[in-house]
């Protein structure tokens, strides 16, 4: 395959490309779904394909295919070059910033290949976990056990040759409970860039039981009245909010087009001095991203340093346009998509407050949680975000009290971050096999999290 790809890159250059890169991706993924104690589906698939990107007279062309015949791929190269020429008159000037040519390979650490575990054992792990969560009052129990193993190879006409091998495993649980005609569902999952040892070494029955208990509690919980509250957020929810509301706004492509609320604010205060925010490729608990899909090493990028906006996330194209250095944030969902600026593991650095210190002094507030949250959405230009929290708790007189459900939070990120008054000393980053982040129709896996934090003012949409 390597020789074939090299010959395709040569061909692209011969017919007019000043630059060409090719991404070859191959791998397999599987999900076992168990519902109410029955094996519902065992879906397994393999995927491979090639994506060709060329620059001709500073215009970009792209072609992709799952058919890997040399003759057809050669045609695809011609097509990519022709497509670049199609836009010539109106093309945005694409110049890739200088970067060190890389010859490297990296592999996420794993001990047990899923293939070394029998189909029967995989099914029985998921079945047992599912049955454990079928307790009284539970109307539906759905468990998913999943894993993937993927190789990505990147080659460019500049001489870069980067391979990454990633393995990921995880298990998720969704429990639906009913009480007095009310139904509530709670979802949670645990995933890791690891092999099947992650699955074999965890007590999944305990995990799914806790999700079931949470749904049974949530269905009886009240919804707090809408209003503005003092809140403490767990690492998961603040991580989600940061990813959506600040992370996307720090993506160079959105800054260039002036779509981001952070545009023009470099060097300015965007958060309280207790807040430092980072995007990194390799973090414990996070997603594995040593190199991006332009073959650039993913470096640690400080976005906010003690409240001051310090930098943005970049691809080679946006780095050139913004006269900045590359950060290794050009990512593509797969070979069929062109790389665009994406986050890797976006999180807040920890502070020095204990959880008790975060809660103390709050007379009437909420402890808002990401576990079981449905996710959120943001308007990057306004910096406006809205999130559905997981089951959360009332804070009364400095103590965490009863559970509340159906809590949604919303706000303007720059206001919210300035209202962060205390940052906790605990720290957790999470990633997910079962979900990801969407942008321009592409889904990539990311990590998010940080410490728990106290926010002095947060709008809660409730009953």
């Amino acid at each position, binding site marked *: 395959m390597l020789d074939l790809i090299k010959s395709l890159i040569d061909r692209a250059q011969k017919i007019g490309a000043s630059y060409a890169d090719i991404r070859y991706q191959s791998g397999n993924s599987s999900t076992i779904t168990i519902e109410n104690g029955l094996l519902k589906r065992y879906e397994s698939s*393999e995927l491979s394909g090639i994506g060709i990107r060329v620059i001709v007279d500073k215009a970009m062309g792209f072609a992709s295919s*799952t058919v890997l015949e040399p003759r057809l791929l050669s045609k695809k190269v011609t097509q990519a070059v022709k497509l670049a020429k199609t836009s010539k008159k109106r*093309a945005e000037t694409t110049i890739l910033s200088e970067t060190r040519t890389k010859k490297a390979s990296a592999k996420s650490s794993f001990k047990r290949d899923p293939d070394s575990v029998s189909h029967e054992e995989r099914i029985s792990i998921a079945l047992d976990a599912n049955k454990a969560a079928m307790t009284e009052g539970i109307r539906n129990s759905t468990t998913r056990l999943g894993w993937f193993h993927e190789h990505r190879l990147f080659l460019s006409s500049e001489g870069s040759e980067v391979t990454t091998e990633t393995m990921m495993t995880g298990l998720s649980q969704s429990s639906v409970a009913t009480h007095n005609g009310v139904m509530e569902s709670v979802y949670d999952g645990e995933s890791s860039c690891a092999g099947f040892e992650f699955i074999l070494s965890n007590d999944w029955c305990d995990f799914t039981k806790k999700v079931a208990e949470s749904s049974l509690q949530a269905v009886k919980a009240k919804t707090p009245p*809408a209003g503005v509250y003092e809140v403490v957020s767990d690492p998961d929810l603040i991580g989600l909010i940061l990813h959506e509301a600040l992370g996307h706004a720090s993506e160079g492509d959105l800054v260039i087009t002036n779509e981001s609320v952070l545009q023009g604010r470099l060097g300015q205060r965007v958060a309280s001095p207790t807040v430092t925010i980072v995007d990194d490729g390799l973090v414990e608990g996070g997603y594995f991203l040593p190199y991006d899909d332009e073959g650039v090493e993913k470096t640690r990028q400080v976005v906010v340093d003690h409240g001051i906006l310090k930098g943005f996330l970049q691809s080679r194209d946006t780095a050139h346009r913004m006269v900045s250095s590359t950060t290794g944030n050009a990512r593509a969902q797969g070979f069929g998509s062109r790389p665009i600026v994406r986050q890797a593991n976006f999180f807040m650095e920890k502070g020095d407050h204990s959880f008790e210190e975060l809660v103390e002094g709050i007379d009437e507030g909420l402890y808002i949680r990401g576990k079981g949250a449905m996710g959120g959405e943001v308007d990057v230009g306004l910096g406006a975000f809205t999130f559905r929290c997981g089951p959360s708790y009332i804070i009364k007189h400095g103590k965490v009290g009863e559970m509340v459900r159906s809590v949604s939070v919303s706000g303007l990120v720059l206001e919210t971050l300035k209202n962060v008054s205390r940052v906790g000393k605990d720290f957790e980053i999470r990633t997910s096999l079962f979900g990801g982040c969407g942008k*321009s129709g592409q889904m990539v896996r990311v990590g998010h999290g940080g410490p728990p934090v106290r926010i002095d003012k947060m709008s809660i949409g409730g009953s």
Partner: protein
Amino acid sequence: MNLLSLGEKTVKLAEKLGADECEVYLTSVDGNSITFADKIESVGSFSSTGLGVRLIVNKRIGFYSTSSLSDKATKQAVRTALAIAKASNQNHEWVSLPTRTGKAQVKGVFDKEIEVMKPSVIADAVALIIDGVHGYDKRLALTRSSISVGVGKDAISNSYGTSLERSESFASASVEVKAEEAGKKGAAGESRLTRNWGEIDFQALFCPAAERALKAMDAKSIASERMPIVWMNDVFARILSVMFGGTLSADSVQSRRSPWAGRLESQISSDNFNLVDDGLREAGVGTREFDDDGIPQQMTPIISKGILKNFLYDNYTANKDKVLSTGNAHRSYTSFPTPYPNNLTLKPTNVRLEELIEETEHGLYVTETIGEWLSNPISGDLSATVTNGFLIEKGELTQPVKDVIISGNFFKIINGGINLIANDLQNSGSTYAPSIRVAEMALTESK
């Protein structure tokens, strides 16, 4: 490539190797797309193929899929599916793969123009939009916009002699416009997803977005209160899709995830709320000759005069309930089929959108939201943050509005909450809805 003969050959191979029944689903897609802002950022083409093998050995189901249609990959897929089947628990509810397959008559789902379209035609449409926006107002610029077109072929073969193939096309355009003047900013977008290139008026598409982006520069939040809400058609279509897309499926009813379980033939909405799943809608985004089981699509009433009439079935869930499938199987080649609406449609009336607004003394007209998909279809809790909207005062649109959260319960809204439905049917994906007015919902200022 001949998908049907590969499908038939693969079914035979599976049977020879020990499968009691086998189904092979094949797909191939080719298309082009251009992403642009004020200039073209990238022009691309994509081709992808895939094959999914589902087979049954003594009520044990095995499945495997591959993006490669090569001989070697196909054979390997069959072998792996067999190995998984043999390792799986018996599914005592399994009856059989679909036996009553065939095609329905549908119109307008394949556009020959798209099949032979040169990328330069798409580039011309892009130029029309770029020049149009720049000519409309000098304070406007484009951001993250795109046009894509493609044609796809899907084929299904199974052990009961099913050998079906369908061809479809799609065109999509998404235009994001921003306005800027003296530190004030506004943004708005419009998008279309259709079967035919000619259905999109590229000249007109950006105009409403341009107009709203300009007005949005003066948008403000408003104080919390309860008031009537007019939901624009495509925003309400998205809410319908969130609230009904999953829970009308017989699968979610059978697995007790749906709030509608046990509610057939009971009243769940007001008389004015009539919902159908029209799998045969002319040029509908979800219109197909047959569903992903190979069963002809049909028109299925869902809510008629407030009464819940049907759930949506694929072959598996229909067999389980001993009824006929409604032709609602949806899948990709990498997954099992599952029931999903084809073209979920809220029936329009003959009232114009303007009348909804004119008849509102004090209210909010909502044109864009974020986060509406976070609403909960099980409890009915609906919440959405308005990013673009207008206050309605004495029947006229006045102050542009942003940053307010609307909340309410969807089940109550459809049951007595909606007092006006318009005639302006529009789709978001494969869900079609007109604009509607809800008598009263809670607004919370978002700060």
